[in-house]
């Protein structure tokens, strides 16, 4: 009997050890990292949470408000194009009206616009927050008025919203850094070009990358500077680094493909071999450069097509279906996962203009109408 009990205890311990080992395997982050990043803590917690939306359940068709970034660049123009196309696809018996506000990428323009949209009494609000702090109180007011808020492509500081559609930005930054570490065999000098300091997307990606570099003592970060998510700024900064460090630079971490295009351009001007770049995207211009110059790179994604998922989520919420509090587009939209140069030919599209960020879900004719197709 004792033997049986002992065996049972042993089996339970082994099972526990296996479960623990699985958990440890599933989470790529250390507890220290999670504790150090409120963003990571929030995302990991919300991934496993469900929001009970029965309070918002109502019959369709629905009037949905979209507080968007606005047509300030090609990314946001394609974001809006995806939204309009998808609402048309769904038909007026699902969405009777898509209310729209263009924030011109500015938080202080967006705050009153959210008030204007709420005054139109929408059934749900899809918000692309232009400022995590600035939009927190407006989001809380919307929820207090009974309008469910679906955050799309960015987040706010309050926890009082239904769900967020995006991706784990800390993980994206860490992925690019880990790829670079592997590419360099764990040893070498890197430079880090971040986006705009103070903008959460940039800061969070940076912290993910820094955690990886810190965990690899063979990697030396020569310098970290902002490239302002600009090709011109990126090129200027890379030129400075090239004159300062020259061929000491073994790899480059970049927080965005616009900057990476500037980095490549600086190397081409200097006539120096381009080192591995952890910082590509599904951005046609960068992919063209990568093919033409045989660049080793890793890419993360932040697709404008995610607005389709945001609209689907809003409908789910209004139909009273519970939704996860964090929805990673990588799990729902094809071709939005991280990738590297081995897949560059699959992602590059020779008919698209350089400023197109994929994937594009609507027909090519529509892309042509918008002027994003190259005509020979």
């Amino acid at each position, binding site marked *: 009997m004792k033997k049986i009990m002992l065996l049972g205890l042993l089996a339970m311990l082994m099972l526990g050890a296996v479960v623990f080992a699985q958990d440890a395997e599933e989470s790529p982050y250390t507890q220290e990292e999670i504790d150090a990043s409120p963003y990571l803590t929030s995302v990991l917690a919300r991934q496993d949470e469900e929001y009970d939306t029965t309070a918002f359940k109502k019959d369709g068709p629905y009037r949905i408000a979209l507080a968007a970034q606005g047509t300030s660049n090609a990314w946001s123009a394609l974001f809006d194009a995806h939204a309009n196309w998808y609402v048309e696809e769904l038909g007026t018996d699902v969405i009777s009206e898509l209310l729209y506000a*263009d924030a011109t990428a500015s*938080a202080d323009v967006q705050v009153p*616009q959210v*008030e204007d949209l709420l*005054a139109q009494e929408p059934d749900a609000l899809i918000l692309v927050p232009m400022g*995590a*702090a*600035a939009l927190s109180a407006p989001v809380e007011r919307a929820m207090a008025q009974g309008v469910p808020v679906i955050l799309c492509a960015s987040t706010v500081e309050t926890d009082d919203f239904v769900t967020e559609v995006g991706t784990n930005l800390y993980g994206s930054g860490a992925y690019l850094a880990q790829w670079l570490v592997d590419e360099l065999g764990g040893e070498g000098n890197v430079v880090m070009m971040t986006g705009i300091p103070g903008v959460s997307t940039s800061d969070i990606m940076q912290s993910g990358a820094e955690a990886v570099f810190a965990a690899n003592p063979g990697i030396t970060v020569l310098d970290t500077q902002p490239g302002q998510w600009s090709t011109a700024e990126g090129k200027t900064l890379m030129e400075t680094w090239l004159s300062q460090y020259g061929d000491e630079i073994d790899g480059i971490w970049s927080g965005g493909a616009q900057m990476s295009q500037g980095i490549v351009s600086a190397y081409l001007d200097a006539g120096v071999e381009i080192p591995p770049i952890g910082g590509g995207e599904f951005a046609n211009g960068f992919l063209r450069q990568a093919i033409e110059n045989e660049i080793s790179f890793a890419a993360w994604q932040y697709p404008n097509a995610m607005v389709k998922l945001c609209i689907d989520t809003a409908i789910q919420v209004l139909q009273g279906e519970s939704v996860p509090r964090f929805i990673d587009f990588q799990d729902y939209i094809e071709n939005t996962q991280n990738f590297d140069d081995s897949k560059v030919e699959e992602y590059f599209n020779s008919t698209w203009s350089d400023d197109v960020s994929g994937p594009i879900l609507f027909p090519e004719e529509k892309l042509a109408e918008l002027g994003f197709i190259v005509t020979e």
Partner: protein
Amino acid sequence: MTTASFSPRAILRRNATILIVYGLIVILLIIGTASSERFFTDRNLFNVLRQAAFLGVAAFGQMLVILTGGIDLSVGSVVKVSVLVSAILMSGDSNNTFAAIVLTLAFGVLVGFIHAFLINRLRVAPFIVTLASYVILRGVALNISTSPIGKSSKEMLLFYDQRIGPVFAIIVLFVAIVILLSILLNRTVFGRHIYAVGGNPDVAHLAGISVPLVRYGVYMLCSGLAALCGLLWLSRMGIGDPVIGDGLELDTITAVILGGTSLSGGRGKVIGVLGGVILLSLTGNLLVALKVNQWIQGLIQGAIIVAAVALFRQEDKQSG
């Protein structure tokens, strides 16, 4: 003075800009009502008025300065620093609310005092003084923080949605400011001096008016009202964010010009600027109702300003 100046035609001509602004407001209301059943509702109209209060509070300060022939390009920067300072001073603690409000307003008044001091003593043009201030205060704000900082107290945050009867408290506050300014400009000696200094500072000086004192008054009021605007933003967002206030100086100048105030000073009415403020706020609201891209608002505003300036020139020719 001739009897003709009191004829209906003369009165109409003198107030043409104001009438056009209110005419445009009526047209926008008709377009909005025709395009959306949710446009001409209590909820949306109170929303527009509450938004107008933000621009209006700062625009009336600008109006006072412009009436004296000056200009204040630092309004947006004062708002920016005020949001940050008040949020830091409040730090989410209700006990700090009163002190934070007083200190923020005092900061605004101090900025206005410095403007007037430099203009009066060093004889530097208001454009240069306030342009320097615009740059310096932006630098100060970004030195304080490039990202959101501080926190509003609960009372301050609740004030944003506070109602007196069916009307938002912010609208009531704005109306009170409009009435007080109207009394100041039309019923007080200081108000008459503002118009006199704007009309011709040399003549005003010869008439025994202290031009420097008038300038101290208007610049302190202007920056004080900008600081109040910053406090309203804190109540709206609950946090100090350095992005607030960008471009506000131009919006205030636009509202003042639209309202029929002459940029060369000495001429302008509170009712006109109120119309300019409401017109700009209503345009933004209508564009959202019509789902139009925001850049078109800039085009519309530009077209209205050109029309207003053309109208001024026409009026000047007729009166000259």
